[in-house]
């Protein structure tokens, strides 16, 4: 009986020891993900920054403390831009993904860029690359990044209306912009081009109409009077819109990719006294949504790192 108990006790001890060794050697994992979107900035003020939310599976990790981060760049195969990390803010928002809670942290980044020169930086398939002081790196696909800086914007024009039309095309999409412009001069102006300042979208010149207002979420096909195609490659000829006083234009937007663009600025080219001028509209937040769709969640990429 004693012998049996001795063997049982030894067996149990070995089993417990094995369990401890196995669980100790299995590294704890940290998972990070983000919803891809079109990030864009039109640099007008000195203190402009970019906010990138990351969803992290642990609340206390080297991803959540600014002091642990050595440097941050955003890059793709062709372009790279360095950023200063201003802060990492806990958002008090959590979302259930893969039966696990992910906590939202917002990285606030300031581009290190010389604004005295005109800049056009457009990156598709952009990655947020973080170097940690512990010697490891992470590379997270964030969508696209566009940064613009213009030094010679005119004041012959000003904005009197800016409103985005949002329709449901497999999630909220900015499908058109109502733009009111006022001519501040006594000269006649001819608008030649209206460029949305984001690599993923174009203004559809052939479909621009004059419009006073619309109800939010009104169907763009109803406004235009025909079935609107959101994803379409278009070739725009120059516009010839005469502006003597005020005008309100509804500008339909075409998408090159299935990505969310909720904030965008515009560059307007116009002719006055036979000279070409341009007017910049700063990036404007047209809508903001926390309504995550199941289809968005299915497309998420999870990046796994060692916790310790």
């Amino acid at each position, binding site marked *: 009986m004693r012998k049996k108990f001795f063997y049982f006790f030894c067996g149990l001890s070995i089993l417990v020891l094995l369990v401890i060794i196995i669980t100790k050697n299995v590294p704890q994992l940290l998972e990070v993900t983000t919803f891809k979107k079109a990030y864009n900035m039109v640099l007008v003020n000195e203190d402009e920054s970019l906010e990138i939310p990351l969803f992290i599976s642990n609340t206390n990790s080297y991803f959540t403390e600014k002091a642990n981060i050595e440097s941050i760049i955003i890059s793709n195969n062709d372009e790279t831009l360095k950023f200063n990390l201003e802060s990492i803010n806990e958002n008090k*928002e959590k979302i259930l993904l893969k039966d696990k809670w992910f906590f939202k942290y917002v990285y606030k980044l300031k581009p290190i860029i010389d604004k005295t020169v005109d800049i056009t930086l457009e990156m598709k398939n952009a990655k947020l690359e973080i170097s940690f002081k512990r010697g490891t790196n992470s590379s997270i696909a964030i969508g696209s990044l566009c940064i613009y800086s213009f030094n010679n914007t005119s004041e012959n024009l000003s904005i009197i209306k800016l409103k*985005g039309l949002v329709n449901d095309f497999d999630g909220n999409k900015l499908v058109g912009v109502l733009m009111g412009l006022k001519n501040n001069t006594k000269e006649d102006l001819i608008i030649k081009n209206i460029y949305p300042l984001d690599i993923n979208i174009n203004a559809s010149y052939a479909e621009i109409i004059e419009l006073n207002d619309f109800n939010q979420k009104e169907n763009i096909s109803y406004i235009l009077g025909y079935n609107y195609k959101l994803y379409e490659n278009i070739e725009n000829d120059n516009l010839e819109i005469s502006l003597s006083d005020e005008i309100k234009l509804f500008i339909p937007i075409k998408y090159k990719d299935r990505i969310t663009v909720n*904030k965008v600025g515009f560059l307007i080219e116009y002719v006055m006294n036979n000279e070409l001028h341009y007017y910049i509209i700063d990036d404007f937040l047209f809508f903001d949504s*926390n*309504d995550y769709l199941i289809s968005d969640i299915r497309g998420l990429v999870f990046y796994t790192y060692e916790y310790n």
Partner: protein
Amino acid sequence: MKRLFIICLLFLFFVPFYTKAYSKTGHEIFQEITFKDEGKLLVDMTTSEVEEGYKYLKGLKFIGWKHYYFNIKEEATYVGEVLFAKSNRSKDPIKIDYKYKDTNTNERSITYGGSLSGKFKKNIKGIDTEINAKIEGNVKKVTSNQTVEETSFTVTIHPNRRIVFRETGDCLVTNGVSKYYFLGITLNKGSWEYIDIVTRYYELYEEVIS
């Protein structure tokens, strides 16, 4: 006379005065709420409509809360607050740089009626969890605050004009009545309503000063 004066002072001292900003939706942050299909806000319900809800809570309950829902996550649109407005009553145009950044925006607005108080907030969380579990395909999410993206713009305000930057949006309305039972006796009851903001839309426009 002196005694009466002291009593009046004591009355003023002990009885708190609550002033609540008037809002036709019952929620300060929403100026207007329009349901996409059918639905009614608590503020638009008659006393008899609310009483009708209590009738569904008459069954036996030994201890705990019982809830009856008028609307469950009913889709609606709202007209929100004016975030910024500036008038120009001078003869010259004014150029302004405006930056909007709200790091502490509530995603949910809650109101209570009857004898319910702020303590009922934890029950609202429970109600919401219960409702979310029933709705198939719903993305489970917990938010107390929402970080609204930063936006800035430069705008020229012309003489006798006013520039307005405002928010509208989509929201989900849930409301109902609840009763708390202890040993089968109703100890507390009241109505409640919570509105979750789903999408915010921003609009900038100029108007003539009347």
